[in-house]
């Protein structure tokens, strides 16, 4: 197949534009939410003031910024901190630093269209400060802990000063190569660009803050490989790569950031093929981000999670086709499993279509529902336990290697023994009326230490669907508490999954509370 035909199967430009627009929306949404929930740390870090500056900048500056990995990097960290509740619990650790770091991002946006304005950037031990969207880097010769850079734009000239020293750098924003620096304190460097792709191991957000000298050594070692890899790309490959990739870096501790290709420290991937494969991964990641599909809800018999498998296999298969190589039989087998799983998921067809896959559907097997809603919320509310989010079980299939979903059980583990006492499976109506009812009853019994009763309900669950690891594992743990270790071992180590082999035992008295042993 011709290269042009391969690339024609998916709309790269559309994915890039949609991703960048989505990123800008994510940023604005998350900032509004942050300022509402944690105004103190926004104030303390000067983030509030910096965001006011953002709101004064021309709108196209934000959209241009969304195309650059630097903003993506900041947003990625911000969303991660928000997800784990760090802004609320530990505001004075990384959260306040991260909000202060927004000042670095803002400084990097200042270009020829910026109005007369000024700002402050806390140094916090860093030496490298990106300017002009990373086209130039300001490098401080000395590390400083508590200093602040004051920057000021006047008549399209960016002036940077350090208190007690004065002006250390001046950049003409209409002609960035016209600049001046106080050589005793800093210098400006230009990361090399080849065919529109920048090679940058210095910016701390990309290369990690290992100090300028260490970054320089890495740069000198890897830059020739980078140049060579770019030179080997065909015209079509180059167009594909440059449509997605803005910058290449090397940092084994860095997760994915759109537009930033991260290669290994050894330089093994700094080949044309390695570069293309990484860009393919970037494309797949973007598609996953902009497609409203929840791959965490599905499992498949693959070595890693379904989402990771999609990205890895898409990249390998596409790269193999681009370079005219065979895809391994193993990869194809795993891809078919992943593909089938995705097709059985809401929006799965759309995802595969964006990835350039043929989606003729029809005869593909339909997997049983992977997620069930558990009717526990009402039961808990009747027991006076409020503010419980909807509880669902994501079924883990026997043939997958995923960890079982203890989400519901674990979310209730914080209840006090007194609260446990108030819950009863009788509040479910008929606990054996359906699979979800029976599992809820099993959960209640497990929490209350009524392990024999728990077993009865789990056996009912297994009659509805015996291909659920959550039922089997919970059953196994009940055997531990009942002093029946051989049965625990049969399920866990020997993977016994035949319902008839697990004999029914007579019920013990209800509400037998103990510390956990029958």
């Amino acid at each position, binding site marked *: 197949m011709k290269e042009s035909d391969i690339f024609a199967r998916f709309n790269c430009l559309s994915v890039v534009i949609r991703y960048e627009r989505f990123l800008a929306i994510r940023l604005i949404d998350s900032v509004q939410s942050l300022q509402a929930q944690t105004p103190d740390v926004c104030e303390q870090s000067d983030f509030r003031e910096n965001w006011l500056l953002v709101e004064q900048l021309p709108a196209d500056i934000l959209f241009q910024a969304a195309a650059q990995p630097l903003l993506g990097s900041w947003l990625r960290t911000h969303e991660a901190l928000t997800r*784990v509740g760090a802004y609320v619990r530990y505001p004075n*650790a*990384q959260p306040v630093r991260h909000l202060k770091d927004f000042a670095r991002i803002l400084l990097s946006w200042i270009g020829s269209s910026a109005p007369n304005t000024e700002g402050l950037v806390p140094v*916090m031990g860093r030496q490298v400060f990106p300017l002009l969207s990373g086209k130039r880097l300001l490098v401080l010769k000395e590390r400083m802990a508590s200093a602040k850079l004051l920057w000021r734009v006047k008549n399209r000239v960016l002036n940077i000063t350090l208190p007690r020293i004065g002006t250390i750098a001046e950049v003409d924003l209409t002609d960035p190569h016209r600049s001046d620096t106080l050589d005793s304190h800093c210098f400006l460097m230009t990361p090399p660009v080849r065919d529109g792709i920048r090679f940058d191991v210095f910016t701390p957000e990309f290369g990690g803050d290992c100090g300028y000298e260490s970054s320089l050594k890495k740069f000198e070692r890897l830059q020739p490989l980078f140049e060579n890899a770019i030179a080997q790309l065909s015209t079509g490959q180059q167009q594909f790569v440059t449509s997605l990739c803005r910058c290449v870096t090397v940092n084994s501790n860095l997760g994915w950031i759109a537009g930033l290709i991260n290669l290994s420290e050894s330089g093994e991937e700094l080949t044309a093929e390695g570069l293309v494969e990484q860009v393919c991964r970037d494309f797949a990641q973007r598609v996953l981000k902009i497609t409203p599909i929840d791959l965490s809800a599905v499992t498949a018999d693959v070595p890693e999670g379904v989402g990771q498998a999609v990205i890895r296999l898409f990249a390998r298969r596409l790269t193999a086709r681009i370079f005219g190589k065979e895809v391994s039989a193993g990869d194809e087998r795993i891809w078919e499993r992943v593909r089938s799983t995705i097709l059985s998921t809401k929006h799965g067809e759309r995802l595969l279509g964006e990835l350039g896959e043929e989606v003729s559907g029809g005869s593909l097997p339909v997997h049983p529902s992977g997620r069930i809603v558990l009717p526990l919320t009402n039961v808990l509310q009747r027991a006076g336990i409020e503010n419980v989010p909807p509880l669902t079980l994501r079924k883990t299939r026997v043939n997958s290697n995923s*960890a079982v979903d203890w989400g519901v059980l674990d979310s209730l583990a914080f209840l006090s023994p007194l609260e446990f006492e108030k819950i009863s499976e009788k509040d479910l109506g008929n606990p054996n009326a359906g699979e979800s009812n029976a599992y809820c009853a099993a959960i209640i019994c497990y929490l209350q230490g009524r392990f024999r009763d728990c077993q009865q309900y789990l056996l009912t669950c297994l009659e509805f669907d015996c291909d659920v690891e959550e039922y089997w*594992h919970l059953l196994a743990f009940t055997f*531990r508490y009942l*002093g029946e270790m051989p049965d625990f071992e049969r399920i866990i*180590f020997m993977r016994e999954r035949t319902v008839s082999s697990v004999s029914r035992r007579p019920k013990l008295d209800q509400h037998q509370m103990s510390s956990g042993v029958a």
Partner: protein
Amino acid sequence: MNSSWPWTGVLRSLVELRSSEALLTQYVAVVAGVRHALDDWIPASHFQAFCELMAQHGLSVKADCVFKPLVNDSTLEGKNLAPTTQAAGLPFPEGMDDSPRTRVHVIVSSRTDWAEETLAAAWYPVFVDRRIVRKPLVDHRRLGIAFGYPDCCVDFFIKHNDWPRFNTLADAARASTRLRWETNCLLKHSPWSTLFHMPCSFDCQATIDYSRKLLSALKEWDVGYTKHIQASLQQSFLVISERLAYVLIDATVKDEARAVYNKALFVGAAAEHDSYGEVLSQGNELEVSDGVVFIYNNGKLIHTVETHCDQGIAEVPLLLNFE
């Protein structure tokens, strides 16, 4: 192995059989009734001798399962769910062999019923075939109670033992009005600890009592060891997370954010997590601010350590000076 202390008697036997000096004080705690039970990992090759030693001292041993090192683990899903130990689990005794890295997970107690109760709740996350097998969170509470840890500390641990979201040590420090050395859990992977549980605060009275009772019992075994433990616990520590902490030798803490020190020694469980020992060794003063540890040498800033809450473990750098 190199010994940190001239062990004698049963302590020496425990060190030799287990190839480890950690956890010794907890064995004393079990014998003295300060705690109900403990769990440990015994080299399979010494398992029989270990059981005989325990029997000589009236202790009951229950075997849970066999631990072996993971092989081909780069694509295993769920490794992040077992951050402290990553091993493959096999049934006991079928999984035993003489490999030095094969261990038996055991429960030790002075009473059979306590041993059984602890065994029920003591499953540790391991990979079986290619799946990580974990127990529900409620069983962590049951295990803490079965061990005989203070209820308040068990409840605190259950609420806070979620490494991506919580930093238990920072939360315990926040709940404290004083930092009592009897509550210092940071040396638990060394011989110099009275604790193996995480205290709910660093002035938790139940934990203070636990430590004092343990040391009182330990004095009957080895007075010098007792004194060394106390001296070790009464030091200053740079703490970043449960698995990343350093004791600052000959330190002077200027305030809650600055300390001058002579040496910094890693006190985590696994040497592979010692990320900053080398850079700390190049400095003699540190300052904590905005989640950054600034390291100085004679007043000059030489390194910065940026801690993270977004990479799977909530890192919150603190200086803790135990009085």
